[in-house]
């Protein structure tokens, strides 16, 4: 057996060290640790809030809340990214250029429209639970992705596009091989904004019966239990920070 084969059986030298140097790894570990340790933190919250009879949220497990929260945000983001990029592409093509203005206005309205109002409107139509929450997140999260796609495609330098046409790339080939890769960093920053916004916004889904990390917050607010609010907020905050740092990694990998 040759030397390189033996070497490849061992973990790559310094891989752990490199992993440990990443803030995203630490933030994720903190999030996981908080999820794992919170169920055992009753004594701590008893000490912090001695006036509360039940200072630890137990109606649902924090892990279930986090998984459901991530699922709702993930589903909404999947739709937001595919729909947002598709819209951004459409209005920057010759065929869709006339729609650029109206689409811009519409997505901007989507973001100024309060997500709570979207929930209030959606519930009578489709009932309580996760579905109205996902709809609200989609409406709310679309703008950053659409505008980043438009901005990113608009900022692609003219010369490579001109050359792509001239040497015989088809319009679709030019988009996929030249325009989107060159616009990718800008589009990714829009996706990052959208996802982070929605990790926070998803908490309000708990007002209409969705299971999210907002559930302890909402219940804590209505039941005057600041310990619940603190537990929910801590987890949402760590989730958002960890996700944001992973986007940071991704953006750096792209450059």
């Amino acid at each position, binding site marked *: 057996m040759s030397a390189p084969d033996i070497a490849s059986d061992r973990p790559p030298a310094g891989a752990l060290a490199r992993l440990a140097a990443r803030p995203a790894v630490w933030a994720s570990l903190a999030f996981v640790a908080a999820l794992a340790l919170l169920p055992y933190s009753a004594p701590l919250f008893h000490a912090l809030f001695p006036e509360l009879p039940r200072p630890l949220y137990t109606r649902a497990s924090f892990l279930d809340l986090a998984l459901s929260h991530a699922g709702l945000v993930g589903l909404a983001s999947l739709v937001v990214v595919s729909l947002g990029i598709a819209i951004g592409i459409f209005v920057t093509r010759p065929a869709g250029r006339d729609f650029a203005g109206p689409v811009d206005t519409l997505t901007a309205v989507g973001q100024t429209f309060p997500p709570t109002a979207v929930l209030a409107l959606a519930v009578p139509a489709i009932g309580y639970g996760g579905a109205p929450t996902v709809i609200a997140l989609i409406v709310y999260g679309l703008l950053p992705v659409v505008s980043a796609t438009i901005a990113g495609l608009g900022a692609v330098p003219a*010369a490579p596009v*001109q*050359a*792509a046409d*001239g*040497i*015989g790339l088809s319009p679709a080939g030019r988009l996929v091989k030249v325009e989107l890769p060159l616009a990718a960093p800008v589009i990714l920053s829009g996706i990052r904004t959208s996802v982070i916004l929605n990790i926070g916004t998803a908490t309000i889904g708990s007002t209409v019966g969705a299971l999210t990390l907002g559930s302890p917050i909402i219940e804590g607010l209505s039941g005057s239990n600041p310990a619940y609010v603190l537990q929910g907020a801590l987890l949402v905050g760590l989730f958002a920070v960890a996700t944001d740092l992973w986007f940071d990694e991704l953006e750096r990998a792209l450059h």
Partner: protein
Amino acid sequence: MIVLDRLTKRYGPTVAVDQLSLTVPTGSICALVGASGCGKSTTLRLINRLIEPDGGRVLIEGTDAASLPPVALRRRIGYVIQSIGLFPHWSIARNISTVPELLGWTPARIAARVDELLDLVGLDPALYRHRRPHQLSGGQQQRVGVARALAADPDLLLMDEPFGALDPVTRDGLQGALIDIQARTGKTVVIVTHDIDEAIRLASRIAVLDGGRLIQQGTPRELLAHPANSFVEAFVGGPRRGLRLLQVTPVGERTDYTVDHGDAREPIAADAMLDAALAQMVAGGIDRLPVLDRAAGRRGTLSLADVVTS
């Protein structure tokens, strides 16, 4: 052979290209020259159908370009632009292999072609293959631009002011490279330029455009010796026209072969141009030069009077 047949392009009330007819023989370099907005770039873009004409036809080897799918047509035609437009996110090799990849060449054939082309444009494949465009100078980037245009071995090469953004020394090097490449590959080249010296140096035929119309076409010598009107005369040099004429007139034409100079001085070649002969006379403070016509195996004498009077 490229034939432009009464080609017309309008933008609203403006006629960008007006009933332009022009023939570019296979294996020649044709320069389209004129001031900004004369329609020369528009004409070039009509050939590979980046824009569609409002009238007239483009015939490429007898086939009407309008009858071919535009994308397929462009893959058969090399295209080089002033802004170069290399794909910044790809290596030099991948940039060059864009069209061969689209045409479904095998990886081995593509890799061999990339190295061949880098050699052709004077860049060491081992050194440049894996570099990114931003790691190259402007002149090197345009060499890659030319290689990319030649990648699928097109018979026709369109160049839109390819060397216009380069410094004079780099431009001179690339012009030399183009002459060399054309001589070795026999490509038909249509080059747009506003630089008459570039046109004189590169082109076997020059077409002067003004206001979308073809004003005059001919060899560089014909244009310099007999400009059709004052516009062409001004364009080809005005007061410097005589000096440029020296650049395109071979020494042999003015040499008196009945007189052997008999000088020990190194003779000038009969196929050198008169400007080089004049430069030697001025530098040496002499009014006669020995001439050697190697092809015909004869010697003669060029006098200063022969240089200036035909």
